[in-house]
């Protein structure tokens, strides 16, 4: 008997296990270490400076909480870094 494969997504190029019901908000919170409100802003009142693409389409922060992840999703979470 084969084991049921664990659900997983790709997050910033790495494989990440996916628990049922997880949303983009969960990923952003995990990566930034900040608490994210339902409207996609940081609860500490400071600007988050983060954007998310799911399967090569931008997901507006207002939709992070309502976007439940699907196994196989390709998620990119980006921010400002030093450059040109």
């Amino acid at each position, binding site marked *: 008997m084969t084991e049921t494969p664990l659900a997983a997504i790709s997050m*910033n*190029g790495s494989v990440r296990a996916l628990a049922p019901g997880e949303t983009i908000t969960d990923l952003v919170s*995990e*990566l*930034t*270490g*900040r608490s994210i409100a339902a409207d996609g802003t940081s609860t500490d009142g*400071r*600007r*988050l*400076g*983060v*954007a*998310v*693409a799911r399967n*090569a389409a*931008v997901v*507006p*922060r207002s939709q992070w909480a309502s976007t439940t992840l699907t196994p196989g999703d390709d998620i*990119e*979470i*980006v*921010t*400002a*870094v*030093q*450059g*040109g």
Partner: protein
Amino acid sequence: MNITMQTGGDSLVIDGVALNSRLIMGTGGAPSLEGLGAALLASGTELTTVALRRHSAGAAGSLFELLVDHGIRVLTNTAGCFTAREAVMTAELAREALETDWVKLEVIADEQTLLPDAVELVDATEQLVARGFKVFAYTNDDPVLALRLEHLGAVAVMPLGAPIGTGLGILNPHNIELIVARAGVPVVLDAGIGTASDAALAMELGCDAVLLATAVTRAQDPARMAEAFKHAVIAGRLASQAGRIPKREHAFASSAMEGRPDL
């Protein structure tokens, strides 16, 4: 130094926004965030470019916070994009992340030259303008292309002085003057600046602003070099407005011969 001393009330206006400094800073190449912060403050800049990359755990977006804390406006670039498609996607992510529709559009042809790919650049400018972006177009020092980008709706054109990171200065001053003479939007000399005199020359040629990163971030004393650039840009701007003397073939005495005593 207060704002009036810095600019003489001579603001740079881009997309209806007045900037008191005509020095736009890049942030690439700085070894530490503290050093970068000190250099940005010393430069007096009010607009600074950033790149958009994957968020790594623990990084906490600290560059963005540094800029927000210093009240410096953020201009995201599309560095590393080789196609219009990549550039448009990067700009969309940047708009969402940083809540600004200003974008420095870079679409480069290859990693050896880092020169803009004119065809992709034109395509990306068209698409981004249609999507409501305010496009600062990083372009070759080509007067025809610069004007084309303006006609497509770019809010500023940014011709290169020399390839990115070379510090070779302004290789084709004549083309920069031509671009300036024909432009109806601000012209920002971008890339290739090596030292303060290059920035002063850009302004003397009539450019509205100068954008540089490496010349400061990789200088031995970045904050001091940033201050040098602040003064160079102001000096070049003043000289450009003051109207320089014509160049002459022969000497022209500044002391009158009249009244000279018989000796």
